[in-house]
């Protein structure tokens, strides 16, 4: 299954609130069905944020344990609300994992790091346009891998926003709720994270063999 949007879409189409309600009603097999649905979703998210399968599995375990202990006390109005809550729990587990391991240290990404400079005449510098990629499956896979690596190099506060918004394709409002920050803050962090990734891709095209292929 490639692409988080797809996984997220499948998750939402399954309408997990129904699975949850069946589980709460004690319907036979309902726990296992709900567990399977949530496990897939949380693991995919954890892998994008942590990068390593073992870390993602630890995150998953923490998330599921916290979630199943808390669920009897909680009511959700719909699958969207349940989904946002699950991301909130998973985010907390990811941050706990981060404290245990040596992830990228937190630092602010400044807009100025990414602003293109100006040439001698004061006019904006020429910017290479590498957006028209050839239809080359290998190159695209290499670029996706580069994006995954660059995502892991992002400080956590930016990585979580980028993964939720661009990979999981949650709305700005949902990300804000899951991360308990303002929508404006989501937009600011997302933009800087995207600029960071764009810069890494540009570097690849300038210096790497991607330029030669291109």
């Amino acid at each position, binding site marked *: *299954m*490639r*692409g*988080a*949007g*797809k*996984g997220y879409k499948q998750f939402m189409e399954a309408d997990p609130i129904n699975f949850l309600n069946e*589980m709460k009603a004690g319907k036979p097999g309902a*726990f*296992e069905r709900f*567990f*399977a649905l949530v*496990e*897939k*979703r949380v*693991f*995919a998210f954890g*892998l*994008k944020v942590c990068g390593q399968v073992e870390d*993602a*599995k630890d995150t*998953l375990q923490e998330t*599921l*344990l916290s979630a*199943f*202990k*808390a*669920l*009897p006390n909680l009511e959700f109005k719909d699958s969207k609300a349940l989904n946002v809550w699950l991301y909130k729990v998973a985010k907390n587990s990811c941050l706990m994992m981060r404290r245990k391991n040596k992830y990228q240290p937190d630092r602010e990404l400044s*807009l100025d790091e990414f*602003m*293109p400079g100006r040439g001698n005449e004061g006019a*904006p*510098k*020429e*910017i*290479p*346009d*590498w*957006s028209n990629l050839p239809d080359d499956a290998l190159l*695209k896979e290499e*670029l*996706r*891998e580069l*994006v*995954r690596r660059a*995502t892991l190099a992002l400080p956590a506060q930016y990585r979580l926003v*980028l993964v939720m918004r*661009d*990979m999981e*394709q949650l709305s*700005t409002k949902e990300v804000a709720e899951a991360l308990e920050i303002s929508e404006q803050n989501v*937009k600011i962090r997302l*933009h800087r994270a*995207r*600029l960071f*990734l*764009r810069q890494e*891709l*540009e570097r690849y095209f300038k210096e790497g063999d991607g330029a030669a292929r291109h």
Partner: protein
Amino acid sequence: MDQLNCREMFERLSEYIDGELDARLLECFDEHTRDCEPCQAFIATLRKTVELCRESGSDAPAQSLFSPEEIEAFKEAYEQAVLDLSDNARSENHPA
């Protein structure tokens, strides 16, 4: 467009490509980028970055990562939480 406005524009490029700008700002962006090749290239490559990001999801496991015994342990944790909730409700209704 002076430097400050350039910075303001640069700051809101993601909102531009996400279609989140209001009509007035959108017009400003369109007007500027129409004749500015570096901006066009920057926006095109930022759009491409987002597209690659959307395609860079991780694979979800086809089968559970947990053994049946481990899943049973999660179920027990859930059932214990349900019991705790009923106990709490009972003691609230019938205080000692």
